């Protein structure tokens, strides 16, 4: 007999398979989100307790926007999984933190993985492979075999399996980046005129572009090729702004800028959010930046809101509705049936595309731009920041009595 998680997951999967364009209306999204919230309230103990502490129990929440969001911090301390621990078949961990004891952990049952697979495939079909043309997918990332806890590696392996032509695969091995091997793989694609989809981490690409520059190499990838990058820099390459990334990718790989897109993915979410690149004249004029405009466009089964944390604990609405005003991204992901669907991030974002009255077009009709991580401004002077203090501590002093969350 199906349990409730399976039942809800099937409903969400069905919904995803039907979704196209902006997807079904808010009311339909809201009804399903509230059903999932009711289930999660019962099934995820730390979440239930938080909702009770905040006085936001299912009987008092009647709009999806009011579903209590869980701070990404909580994934570092608590097991946020709806189900018995023995049903967990996969655990993903966040990377890039200087403190291994404080990484986010995200738990999936086999059923949850299936739902994530559908989310990954449906989303890629509409945002990455919209023209339906298959390509050789080369992932500038370690394979799941080498990085079993990386949700990014998992997602890329799904894309390779679903959409990759023969010759697709991962370009990084245990030893790191072998530039000779990568250029040979790209040379082969160029020689055979096979379109390539290069996917990988942003910092990996920056390191690759630097290496290609040193080697004096440039490629003219076949028409239909593309590049998708994700994950930011995390101090593992030099940091560059999005425009410079596009310029470097164009220069080294011969890709037009609308074929270079960024993906927002998080260990805490089962869905990802792609750049929508548009050369729509009106949108370009509004962006004032280049010949194309780009913003993050959530898939129909994800809603994103922007909150002002200074208002979040007060009675007034914390939501930012004006364009070009910074706030924190809060995602509502229906593919998170087993983990809290409402996630409060510390990513700073802004709505792009204003309506004539100055209000922003929200994630359904417009999109947002990620401005970076919100972190307390650099430690000022002789006081010390939390982050810096942890960095200065020996590893054994860092463990706050725990090795992250355990289920």
């Amino acid at each position, binding site marked *: 007999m199906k349990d409730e998680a399976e039942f809800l997951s099937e409903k969400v999967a069905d919904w995803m398979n039907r979704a196209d364009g902006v997807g079904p209306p808010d009311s339909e999204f809201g009804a399903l989100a509230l059903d999932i919230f009711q289930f999660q309230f019962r099934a995820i103990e730390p979440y239930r*307790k*938080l909702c009770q502490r905040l006085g936001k129990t299912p009987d008092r929440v009647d709009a999806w926007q009011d579903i209590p969001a869980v701070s990404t911090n909580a994934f570092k301390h608590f097991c946020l999984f709806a189900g018995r621990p023995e049903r967990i078949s996969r655990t993903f961990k966040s990377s890039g933190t200087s403190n291994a004891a404080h990484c986010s952990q995200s738990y999936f049952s086999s059923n949850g993985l299936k739902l994530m697979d559908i989310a990954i495939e449906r989303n890629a079909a509409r945002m990455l492979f919209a023209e339906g043309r298959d390509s050789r997918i080369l992932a500038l990332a370690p394979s799941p075999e080498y990085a079993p806890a990386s949700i990014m590696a998992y997602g890329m392996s799904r894309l390779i399996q679903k959409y990759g032509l023969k010759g697709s695969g991962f370009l990084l091995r245990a030893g790191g980046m072998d530039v000779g091997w990568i250029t040979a793989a790209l040379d082969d694609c160029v020689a055979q005129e096979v379109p390539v989809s290069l996917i990988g981490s942003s910092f990996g690409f920056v390191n690759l572009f630097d290496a290609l520059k040193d080697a004096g190499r440039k490629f003219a990838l076949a028409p239909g090729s593309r590049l998708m990058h994700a994950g930011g820099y995390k101090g593992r390459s030099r940091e560059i702004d999005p425009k410079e990334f596009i310029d470097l990718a164009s220069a080294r790989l011969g890709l037009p800028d609308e074929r270079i897109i960024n993906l927002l993915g998080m260990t805490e979410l089962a869905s990802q959010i792609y750049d929508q690149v548009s050369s729509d004249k009106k949108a370009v004029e509004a962006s004032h930046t280049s010949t194309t405009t780009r913003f993050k466009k959530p898939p129909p089964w994800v809603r994103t809101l922007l909150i002002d944390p200074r208002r979040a604990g007060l009675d007034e609405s914390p939501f930012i509705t004006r364009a070009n005003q910074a706030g924190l991204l809060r995602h509502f992901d229906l593919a998170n049936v087993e983990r809290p669907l409402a996630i409060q991030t510390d990513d*700073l974002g802004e709505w792009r595309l204003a309506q004539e009255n100055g209000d922003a077009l929200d994630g359904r009709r417009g999109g947002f731009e990620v401005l970076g991580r919100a972190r*307390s401004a650099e430690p000022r*002077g*002789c006081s*010390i920041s939390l982050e810096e203090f942890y960095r200065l501590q020996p590893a054994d002093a860092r463990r706050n009595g725990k090795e992250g969350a355990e289920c």
Partner: protein
Amino acid sequence: MLNQVRACWLPPQLDDQLKRLSNARAPLVRQYSRDDEEVTVVFDVLSPNALSLTCSFLRDRQERVLREKSVYDIAQVLDLAAQRWLDPAYELRRQAIQQIALITGFSAEMVGHSIDLEQKSSRYPHLIQALSSELGDPAYLDSFRPNRHLGGYSRAHGPGLIGAIFSSNIPALPHLEVIRALLVKSACLGRVSRNEPIFLSLYAQTLFEIDPEIASCLAVTYWDHDDQSSEAAFFQGVDHLVAYGGTAQIDRLRATKPAALEATWHGHKMGLAYVTREALTQDNVESLANKISYDFSIFDGHACLCPQVCLVEKDGEVSPMAFAEECARQMRGWAARLPPRRLEVSDASGKYHLRELYLMRESMGEPVRVIDAPGDLSYMVVWEDNQAFAASPGDRFLKVVPVSDVVEAEAYLKPLRGYLQNVALAVPDHDLAVYGELGRKFAALGASRIVPPGIMGTPSMIWHHDGMPCLGRLVRWCDYELLEPEALLNSNPEALLDGLQLGDLQ
């Protein structure tokens, strides 16, 4: 309001000299905005050549002006400056409050309060006492003076030029280094922080109003921290470096400064409050909580001397939990009297996530209680039983941790070794034995200042800042010995010294 201000200050004579140098300076314009207000700050960025010329100019002024002045006259001028800054009607003070509040986000009340705290301890008696404490006699800076310990004469010389690199975490602090430099008769070249570039130039204007000659021994400038050629010219031109900043900044400066350049470092430090069970009674819980809450509120918890945590001994008349509850009431009062800084969204994010996490930990039955955490994030009071030490994120985060005794506290505080600076210690009145025992423990952990609660934010000028004699370490001594060391072994050295008839050597 003035919407354009200058962040740098140069003596007029130097200004004239720089005009004759080509490409001596380039204005750097920065906008600072907060909510609907905006201020434009113009920085005078000097070229490396101009910085070198500035150093020569300041050295020359030091020789002509400071070397010729009595240290007591210099202290009088600094005292007059402090008096002006303590006057609520003083125009430059009003400007500073308005502009620093806008640039840093600190409330105007807090900026004004900081100015008061800093200037109140910068009066003539404080300056003279600080010199006496570290040099024995301030007059050693004016001439060879009899030194009876030595059996001869001693004289102290400050460096020709002190270079100072400032931080921004305490509004209105940078004048402290200018005072220290001038007290040892050194000229001073200051590089302000881009996050609080205003105060020092205004202070220099005050000195100029009172004594243009003394003010001509001071220059305030700016360069970006990655501008290596300017930094090299600065290092080359100064005799002693005083630097404030975070670990990365201090490490970088340590690595890049010339090996021979002497330096005083004021890097990351942390404070704490410790309440003994004997000091916490029903009668004084309110006043003690008020003082501790004040210590957690000043500078919004962003100064090195601010407490990171409040350790409270268990099993007293008032429990640590009840004390935390009283602290919450007092924190609310201080938030009204000295409003907290306006948080940017990115600063507020950290506080928001921390609040959520504590609420969740509490509801999950962890030994944590969120005593008060207003949704406007103005402050937060939590009680947390014996967890591993974690540094405070600042912005008025008061954490009460119950402890059995000081031995447990020592274990808890171990990670602070190397960072501990100020300790507010609540012990019963006049109980010197308890004071002594705890004082020894905290001194052994590295503390450099122990005070009763309520005055953490007002260190005296006499305090050995970060454990150092900050005036004493600047000077070079010349001793004029008239006796062989054996003479002091004489059966009556006093008579021998009297016989020398040591008078002033002019």
